[in-house]
């Protein structure tokens, strides 16, 4: 958490010293999107989750420096914002692969064999839950019931929902055999 203590006061603009120390600034596009959200709410910190999602959409994940930059813009403490960021499972505080696999492991998918599918994905891609392939293509995460239980087992890859998953469909998506070249990393 010590990394989260702002290098500068939360409402001051960044100086060169702070930038040299690894700080980041929000891009014009990020600022425009965040400010559009701010215009709808009574106070700036109310858009904390929207702002985290906006920065994540641009950068793939939310780094410590991004948390500090967003906090400065929202006039809130970086630690408070990180408390929000770490609460929500779809805010990624570590880098993720180009495609996040959200594997439903709730009850209806469990009945239909999601544990075996998870094993199969691990064999094919060389990653367990929370891990990313070495080629950075995939990150595997569990997710809450995806609301498609009549098509169980299901998962999402990026924004696409995949229903009635079988070994065959996993083969079409990820290749048919174990791929040691894609070995996982945390």
């Amino acid at each position, binding site marked *: 958490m010590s990394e989260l203590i702002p290098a500068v006061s939360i409402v001051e603009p960044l100086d060169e010293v702070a930038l040299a120390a690894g700080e980041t600034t929000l891009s014009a596009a990020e600022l425009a999107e965040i400010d559009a959200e701010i215009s709808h709410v009574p106070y700036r910190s109310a858009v904390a989750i929207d702002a985290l999602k906006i920065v994540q959409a641009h950068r793939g994940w939310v780094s410590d420096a991004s948390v500090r930059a967003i906090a400065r813009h929202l006039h809130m403490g970086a630690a408070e914002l990180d408390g929000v960021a770490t609460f*929500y499972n779809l805010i990624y505080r570590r880098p993720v692969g180009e495609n996040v696999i959200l594997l439903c492991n709730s*009850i*209806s998918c*469990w*009945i239909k064999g999601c544990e075996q599918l998870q094993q199969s994905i691990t064999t094919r891609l060389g990653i367990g839950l929370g891990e990313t392939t070495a080629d950075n293509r995939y990150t595997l995460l569990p997710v*809450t019931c995806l609301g498609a*239980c*009549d098509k169980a087992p299901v998962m999402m890859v990026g924004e696409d929902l995949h229903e009635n998953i079988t070994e065959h469909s996993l083969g079409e998506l990820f290749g048919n055999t174990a791929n040691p070249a894609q070995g996982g990393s945390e």
Partner: protein
Amino acid sequence: MSTGASLDRPLTRNVRPDRSPTDLVAYEANGGYRGLRGTIGTLSPADCLQIVKDSKLRGRGGAGFPTGMKWSFVPMDNADGGHKYLICNADEMEPGTFKDRLLLECDPHQLIEGMILSAYTIQADIAYIFIRAEYHKAARLLREAIAACYDKGYLGKDILGSGYTLDMQVHSSAGRYICGEETALISSLEGKRANPRAKPPFPQVSGLWGRPTIVNNVETLCNIHHIIERGADWFQGLGLTEDAGTKMYGVSGRVKNPGCWELPMGTPIRQIIEEYAGGMEDGYSLRGFLPGGGSTDFLTPEHLDLAMDYDTIGKAGSRMGTGTMIILDDQTCPVGFVKNLMEFFARESCGFCTPCRDGLPWSAQVLDDIEHGRGRPEDMDTLARQVTFIGAIGNTHCALAPGAMEPLQSAMKYFREDFERHITGGSCPWCDGGAH
């Protein structure tokens, strides 16, 4: 999916077999926004409230609280002239629940028309649709539908010349089951951690940003324009029992035809499972079922002839919850089933109160021990104590942990011998057979 006569299946009248979305043109061609046009500026908010009260509509998110009564607690004098909010809870995450996705993806305008009339009734000036992050398609369709409504004058300033003004926007969430709890949802919408809030004050008086706020489920709000347009008597006549209306029922698990159907409230459970879901898959038999999502008590084959409505299922010792059943078959381990649910609830605890934060992982650990043959006879007593302590309303900050205890306590009642077989045999009888 049922696409039968529009008269008796109002919620799914625009749902097509291929589940393609109904746009504004198609929605209006089938009578859409007629309820809005006939109401705003004609009926008073008090008239609308009375119709919804008389309809006996109960909240479809799981608790079954009477919608009209919930709305009646919103202060209507609005002496301070500040904002009032209507929030649609589209954060569908209850395990085994897949009904709101259908309504959102197939007929977004039905929800929006219902929301406009609901907001009008409580005189809210801002409406949010709080939707789970994974429902990308539904969020996109809703944003398009809202934009179309602004163009048509159904949203924005002075709607249809009535003097009533309403703004509406979609908030896409960032995960976590607890956001479906209405006060946690409000915390999340304010940009905070989604910790539930103490009640009172109730959201109707002090909700979003301290202002009067109503939070209703998608299916609840989808009913509203039909009720106001067609009347309370019509709505009550739809139900087969004391409970009014239709209900989105679903069945998942090892049945031949898992799915979601709009049927009269009070349809017998047997009919839903055997007729609509096609009965059990070949080679499987029914041992039990959760009637309405992961936080409801098991019922068993002896309950199949009960009517699926709030009061009947309540009297049988469970809850109708979301109305989407999860089937436990004879080749699935009841201990593993409950362990999966407990691990889910432990993971999704917001961490605010001790019984939930520390108690649910403890329960999950005991179940894991039993499932993997490490259980001891006294573990059954430990689980029973946890059920008594954590399951009691008032010992926890919100209903998540008591809900988590419902499948456990009923599994210990109906499938106790299966728990004991794990403990005395030192292994899972189902794992040995490789069935799961």
